[in-house]
Every structure is written in C-alpha cells, then in structure tokens.
C-alpha cells in the first residue's frame, strides 16, 4: 500500500514540478489577493466630489457659507489626502443637474439667511455605498466647527438603497465573468489538448473565423448568464426597473459587456496550450478585474495606483453603466461613455485574439 502511495505521490509531484508556470501562479494568486483585495476593500474614501451652493436670492456669501466651505475643503482622513473635492456653484439647479449626471456625489445647499433656524439642505447620491453617510458626517462636522447649529435636511435622491442592491449590480457582471471563465476560451484549449484542432487547421477555415466563432458562442452564453442573474437580482434585492427603455438598455449593456469580457478571455486562450495554465490566468484576470470594478466598494475608496486599473477595466464600465440605469434610472446620455469604452475594449480584444492565434501546430 505504501509503495503504491509513494509511486503515485512521486508521479504527481513530478508533474507539478515540471510546470513552473502553474507553480508561480499558485504562489502569485494569494499575494495578489492580499494586495488587491486588501486595498480595494479597505481603502479610505477620499476626494469625493461635492457641490456647495447658497440658496437663490443672495447678495453676498453668508459667514456660515464661507466658513463651512472652508472647513469642508480642509477636512481630511487621518494622514490622508482630502476627503472632499469641493466645487462652489452659484446656481442650485446646475449643481443638481451635475448630481443627477454623476459629476458630483452630493450637493450641499446653505440657506441665504444668517438665521440658524433655516436648514442646510443636503442632496446625496444614495446609489453609492458609504459615500452618503460620509458626506453627511462631513457636513455636520463643518457646521459644528463653524459654530452653527442649523438643522441638516437630508435628501437621498435615489431613495434608500441597500448594500445588497448596490452589490447585486456587481454580481450581474460577476455572472458574466464566471461564464466566460468556464466557456469561451476553455473550449479552444480543449480542442488543442484533444488534438481536434489538427483536424480543422488543415481546412481553409480562417483564424479570424475560429476566433469570431468562439467569441460569438461565448458571448451568447455569458449574456444569458448575466440576464438570468439580472432577473434573479430583481426578484431578490427588490430593485425596480423604471421603464421598458431602461430594461432594454440593461440588455444592451449586458451584451456589450459579455462581448468585451469573452473577447478578452478567448484572446488569452488563443496562446495557451493547456487548461491548467489558462485556468491560472483566468483566475488572475477574474480577481483583478472584478475587485477593481467597483462592484464591492466604491472606486473612489481605492488607492490611486489601483484606480488606474479601473480605467482599462471593462467591468468597471459595466458596473458603472448598470448602476446608472438600474439604481439611478439614468439614460444613454450618462452611460454613453461607458458603452463607448466597452466597445473599444471589445474591438481591441478581438483584434488581439485573431492576431495571436496560432494557425500552425508549433
């Protein structure tokens, strides 16, 4: 019995050692988890863009307004950069428009009179996690240190949004990613491993056909996965889709996201010869893209270097677009940039996949 066990141990261990790439990835993964997960989740939220404005029909800025704005500007996390990026508006309507379009996360409206009986009105983007309460406590702190005891009247412009609703949108994107990890690229590698590829590389089929075919089927699978989770999300978390137009817009975002992420994974697969290596790379991508997508935690809470990744992360745009539609009821005007970024990304990934696919056996 021992002899057999030793033989099997040796065989397995020999194979393990003969594949340095997988060894490296097994070491690399936990370290990446530590760095990315730790930073993405635990970061302190800084540089929240907020608008401050004084009520209409004012002649000069009240002392309260001046001192509170100064206070908000200097508020900082301990040892960290400033908490708020304060923009002073002169027009309340414009400030609110910017809030609706996601340019600022909150609007603080100070009363035009000096009287402390008038409330300071606070409008916050309640679709963001953590940010509303942060803004609220910041404003209260600023008022207190200015010696004013005005009431703060809080308006959550998207109503009460629970964390599960915030997170649920991220899970839709996660479903898409999971599906592309399992399908899409892996089929390409399976063909290579099983030698099936030798059968069709000798036919006139073009490598662009092979890649586009794989991306096409992978995209549909990912889209269906995302769609099902979207429906589950509606049922479980109680999000409400305002109109048929919004519903269709969600489908469009799901489709383009599926296309982008599938293209990326198929492109990665076009260079790999075995499933283990591919799985390691897929897990790595999955981690880094999902963690930095803002699905768990607002992107503004991430350190700067990690925030750079979000710029090239298709999942960030997907999460942002879905949140805009589902939680804020915003339309094409707001998510246009997200869609454009996703399309650019997909095109790039498809071209990469086609050009790197090996048309020969070597």
């Amino acid at each position, binding site marked *: 019995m021992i002899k057999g066990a030793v033989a099997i141990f040796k065989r397995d261990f020999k194979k393990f050692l003969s594949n340095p790439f997988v060894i490296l990835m097994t070491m690399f993964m936990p370290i990446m988890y530590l760095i990315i997960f730790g930073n993405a989740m635990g970061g302190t939220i800084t540089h929240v863009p907020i608008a401050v404005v004084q009520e209409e029909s004012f002649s000069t800025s009240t002392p309260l307004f001046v001192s509170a704005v100064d206070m908000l500007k200097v508020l900082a996390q301990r040892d960290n950069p400033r908490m708020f990026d304060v923009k002073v508006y002169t027009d309340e309507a414009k400030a609110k428009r910017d809030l609706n379009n996601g340019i600022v996360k909150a609007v603080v409206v100070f009363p035009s009179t000096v009287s402390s009986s008038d409330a300071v009105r606070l409008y916050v983007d309640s679709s963001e996690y953590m940010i509303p309460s942060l803004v609220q406590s910041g404003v209260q702190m600023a008022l207190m240190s200015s010696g004013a005891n005005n009431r703060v009247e809080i308006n959550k412009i998207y109503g009460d949004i629970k964390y599960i609703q915030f997170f649920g949108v991220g899970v839709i994107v996660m479903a898409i990613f999971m599906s592309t990890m399992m399908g899409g690229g892996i089929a390409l590698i399976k063909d290579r491993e099983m030698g099936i590829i*030798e*059968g*069709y590389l000798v036919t*006139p089929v073009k490598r662009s056909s092979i890649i586009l075919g794989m991306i096409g089927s992978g995209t549909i699978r990912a889209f269906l996965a995302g769609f099902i989770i979207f429906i589950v999300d509606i049922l479980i978390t109680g999000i409400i889709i305002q109109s048929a137009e919004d519903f269709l817009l969600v489908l469009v975002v799901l489709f383009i996201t599926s296309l982008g992420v599938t293209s990326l994974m198929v492109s990665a697969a076009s260079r790999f010869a075995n499933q283990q290596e591919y799985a390691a790379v897929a897990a790595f991508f999955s981690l880094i893209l999902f963690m930095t997508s803002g699905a768990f935690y607002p992107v503004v809470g991430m350190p700067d270097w990690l925030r750079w990744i979000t710029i090239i992360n298709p999942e960030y745009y997907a999460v942002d677009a879905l949140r805009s539609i589902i939680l804020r009821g915003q339309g094409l005007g707001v998510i246009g940039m997200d869609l454009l970024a996703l399309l650019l990304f997909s095109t790039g990934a498809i071209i990469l996949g086609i050009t790197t696919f090996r048309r*020969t*056996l*070597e």
Partner: protein
Amino acid sequence: MERRNSPCLEDPPHGDGQTTGSRNIPDNIIRIDHLTKIFGGRTKNVTAVNDVSFEVKRGEIFGLLGPNGAGKSTLIRILTTLMEPTSGTAFVDRYEITRFPEKIRSIIGVCPQNSTLDIELTAYDNLEFYGKLVNVPGSELDTRIWQLLRMTDLEDRARMRVETFSGGMRRKLEIVRAFIHHPLILFLDEPTIGLDPEARREVWQQISTLNEEKTTIILTTHYMDEAEKLCNRIAFVDKGRLISLDTTDNLRKLIPAGDLIEIGADLMNNGALAELHENSLITSVDFRDRKVFISAKNGSRVLPAIVAVLEKYSITMTSISIRPPTIEDVFIYLTGKKLDGGGISNAKPAAGERSP
C-alpha cells in the same frame, strides 16, 4: 497483387529555383525539394526530416513507409501546412507550401494519425461541421453526408455520438470526412493503426474506392502489407531520410538474392545440390527440414531448370512454392532493421543511400 501503374510520363525538367509550376497540369502533384525540419529542444535539436526530395504523381496511391518516429507524420504535417519546414520547400499542386497555405488547404483532405473527431458530437454533426469548414455548398452537404455514411455503413449510427463508436468505425468516419469535399489529394496518416484485421480490410477497400475517383492518395504506414496492397509507389523513410523510392516491384528487385523458392522433398542428393549450385541465376541452395530453400534471381524463369535437375536425380517433390521478397525483406535489407522498430543482427549492410 499487381497494381496498375499510373500513367507515368516523363518527369518534368528540374530547373533550379523553380517557383511555381509554370505548366498547366504538371504530372507531379507534389514536389518536395530538399525539405528539412529540425525541432529545437532545450538541450538538443531533433532532425525529424532530413533533406528529403521526391515527387508524387497525379492520381497514384503513394506510400510513405517507415518505422515509428521516422518522420512520416512530420512530413505530412509540413505538406498539409500545419508546420513550416526549417529549410527547403515543397509544392502541392501549383502552390508553394509556405506562401499559399490557404490555397493548399482548400484542395487537400487530411486524416491525421490521432483522431480529430469531436467525440461529443454525432457522426452526422461531425461531417456537417467539417463540410462547412471546407466549403461544401449547403445545398449538397446533406446528400453528401448521407452518401458518405452509406459508404461506411454508419447510416443507422448517424445520430449517435462518436464516443459510442468502435475504433474502426471512428477511423472510417474520419477517412470519409477528409474526403467530403472531393479533395485533389488525400493525406492519410497511419489510417489503420490499432484496427483489427477486419476493420483494416474495410479501410483498405475504402481507400481503393476513393482512389478510383482520381484522387491522389498519400498514406503513411509502418505495415508493409498495407503498403504492398495499396500503393503504386513506396518511399522508404528512416530517421528523417528518404532511403529509397520506387514501385513495389522495382523495390523487390533491390534485393540481390531475388525470389525465394521452397521445394518439399523427403530425400536429397548431393549431386543434385551441386548441380543446382552451378546455375548462375541461383544464389544459394540449402536443404533442411525436408525442404530445399533456393534463392534465385528471377525465380519463375529458373524454376523449370530446377525441376529438371531434381527429376534427373529422381527426387520426389512434395510441394513447390515460389514467393517474391516482401517489402519488409527489402526494408530490412536497406536499413538493417525491421519496420516495427526492432533491429536484427544478421541483416545485410546498409545500402549506399543510407546516411552514415
């Protein structure tokens, strides 16, 4: 087992630096010119194909015969554009292999050594998938698939997954799949490896049928009976080199000993043996186990003389058999080893073409 020789006109002139065949229909459908393939390893390079040149004639069944690891599959993979040669070149029809791989892919059919069927799909789906890849027109595809399934007796299995098929059924399916688009050239890499005798015969039958449709067939094998039965011409390869190439009959003539004649006789007379030795066509005479073993050039011509000698000495003959040397005998003679890889010690020294 005589096969018709393909219409063999004179070989085309070999100019230096030919690029593409300038003639409309060259007699040679494949021309291989000093082809070499070296696989780079971490520690050492392996030369799988070593400076090989030969031609394949239009419409023939051409056999690449050699032991495992001789470089047959590599050669096929280069010709089917799956690999690029390290040096040298080759033309398939009018197309150079590295410059016009796509043209070549549309005129060849390939059945690789290892199964490339998708076993999770049905027989029909496999043929349909492949048919679409090789651009069989949609209107003809269904008819063609059923025609091929009939050829292989797999009609009743059409809708079953290939994973339920036996090795022979899979092989037959794969061979006809390579033929779905009526290719000009069919490459079969070890078509009968691992099949039982019955299945092998069926595959052979199929290959002969396909050849009747004017398709050039190139097959690799390490079974000499297969090469003998099917091929018009045979190329011997060993260790990446081309050792000899000729028709089956001509290859047999390479053995100086010629045909082998066995005559059963209960008794033998020394005088008769001596007289047999005197015949200039006879190279060796041996009597053992109540049989006379005679090696002679042109055995059928010398046989009457032998019979006459034995009758003169009143020796009763119980049986006479005469057989030409097999292709395997020739291969052993040329390389000093058997086709299935085992070396034999008492082999004749290698012929001049062999690499040192």
